[in-house]
């Protein structure tokens, strides 16, 4: 993450309406900002879209993992659990074994460059027996490594490679962590917010494609 230093003047600027860290959607940044949680500021007229989740499911998780469950939310009727990063794999395993969330539907990341914990990992789980979905989230610092979910769901293999490719997040315990969509020698991680949409690895393009620019 050589470009870590560039993060502050990141290209979020093309979005004038982009809120600062304090106004960030509460769900995503939860671990860093427990205090800002009840804000839900902008939509004053309409009911808040994110409400705390308090049902059987979340209680079971809290009971099992205690403080590791940082937050439980419901956003547009979709359940979200925010988990301590170190406990992420354990929670995932518990979800698969005890709560029967047997399908890892999707696994991805979101970049919040202004936050202290920059990356959110987001896993969408689905349970065949109960026909319900659950979203697990955890937040990571820029240089922090995550635990690979590969041992829980083999499906995580390529998904984690893609996250590594696009965000540069390293997964501990992944059998073969290398780029998947971009060429192996590519510099930079395109889905980070500080990677401009026009930016590219011109050196690679020049060398391998024999043209000045891919644009």
């Amino acid at each position: 993450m050589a470009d870590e230093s560039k993060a502050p003047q990141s290209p979020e600027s093309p979005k004038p309406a982009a809120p600062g860290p304090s106004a960030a959607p509460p769900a995503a940044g939860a671990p860093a900002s427990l205090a800002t949680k009840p804000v839900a500021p902008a939509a004053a007229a309409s009911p808040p879209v994110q409400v705390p989740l308090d049902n059987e499911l979340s209680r079971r998780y809290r009971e099992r993992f205690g403080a590791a469950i940082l937050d439980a939310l419901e956003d547009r009727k979709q359940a979200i659990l925010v988990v301590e990063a170190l406990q992420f794999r354990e929670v995932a395993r518990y979800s698969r074994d005890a709560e029967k969330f047997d399908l890892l539907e999707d696994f991805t990341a979101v970049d919040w460059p202004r936050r202290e914990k920059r990356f959110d990992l987001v896993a969408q789980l689905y349970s065949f027996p109960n026909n319900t979905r659950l979203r697990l989230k955890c937040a990571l610092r820029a240089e922090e490594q995550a635990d690979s979910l590969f041992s829980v769901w083999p499906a995580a293999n390529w998904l984690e490679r893609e996250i590594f490719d696009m965000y540069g997040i390293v997964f501990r315990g992944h059998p073969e962590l290398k780029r998947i969509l971009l060429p192996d020698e590519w510099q930079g991680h395109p889905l980070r917010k500080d990677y401009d949409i026009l930016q590219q690895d011109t050196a690679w393009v020049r060398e391998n494609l024999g043209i000045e620019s891919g644009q």
Partner: protein
Amino acid sequence: MNDLANTIDDRTPQRPDTLLGADELVINMGPQHPSTHGVLRVKLKLDGERVIGSECVIGYLHRGVEKIAENRSYQQFAPYVDRMDYVAAVSNGLGYCEAVEKLLMVEAPPRARVIRTILTELQRIASHLLWLGTHALDIGALTPLFYCMREREEILKIFEKYCGARLTTHAFRIGGLQYEAYDTLEKDVERFCRGFEARIQEYSDLLTGNSIWLGRTRNVGLLKAEDCIALGASGPVLRASGVKWDLRKAMPYAAYDQYKFEIPVGANGDTYDRYLVRIEEMRQSRLICLQAIENIPAGPIMARVGKVLKPPPGEVYHAIEAPKGILGYYIVSDGGTQPYRVRIRPPSFINLQALDKMIRGHLVTDVVAIIGTPDIVLGEVDR
């Protein structure tokens, strides 16, 4: 055998599991290979003609769709999703529009939803037809391809009449539809559906009972239900392995809750089952279309959404049953006019992961027979 091996001098390395002890052969299939369905590259490690390992090399078609999404407004991005699974553009559009509608907390009016259902089901048939033709071609049956293209053409003509485009249709808008159904839509769909049953029978006559076809596809590329779920494989691949599960039934969207249809399942999860499941799905889609055109509700086709979409901050995940499997959209909004993050869960990408599991231990010839069965579209795999 062990002590025999010891009498041999130490220079000779022991490689018992390769043909004649010769080196493993690494064969490169693709990206320019006639049967890899696009720019997929598979490196096959062979012992003789038997596959002992494989690696998919993808990304040749990577365009950074998710990055583009963060720099376009919600409406502007909609045409881009058509370019992912370009043989099922309508389904992609449906998933995206519904996801954004969920994010906006609006719902498309009933008429729009029914028309969406009709077009999406036609698209499913078209996608399966293309799959069937190319898959049969991979196994060496030339003729079904042309029959399939003939029927697909009729569907594409309906699309063309509806929205002017055949392939990348951009048929739907966030909040409903832009175009009212043209006058003879029902009639066209009905004519197609009425004739289609006989056409499916034609393919079945050519393939289903053909003993060469059976020999090539039965017990080839087996994938057990547990493996499917562990690897995230969805859609016809999952159903062929015997899991009776379809998002259209499990979590109905559009207007699927109004129609009766069956979920076909396979018994073994081999190539033949995947073929049968897709054939049966075409029949079911035909039935859905016939039910839908019987009663298209009147009313508006567009919900009230503003010209500028500013969804409240938050996030939503919405998935539909695309022809190839679960097509999911995870959209994060920061309250602005552009999505903060759009994550697309491409069914092809995740189904492709199961390829290695399917082809191990088979012959190279079988790889060709198997490679088509997850029904991958590289535009979607690479995005």
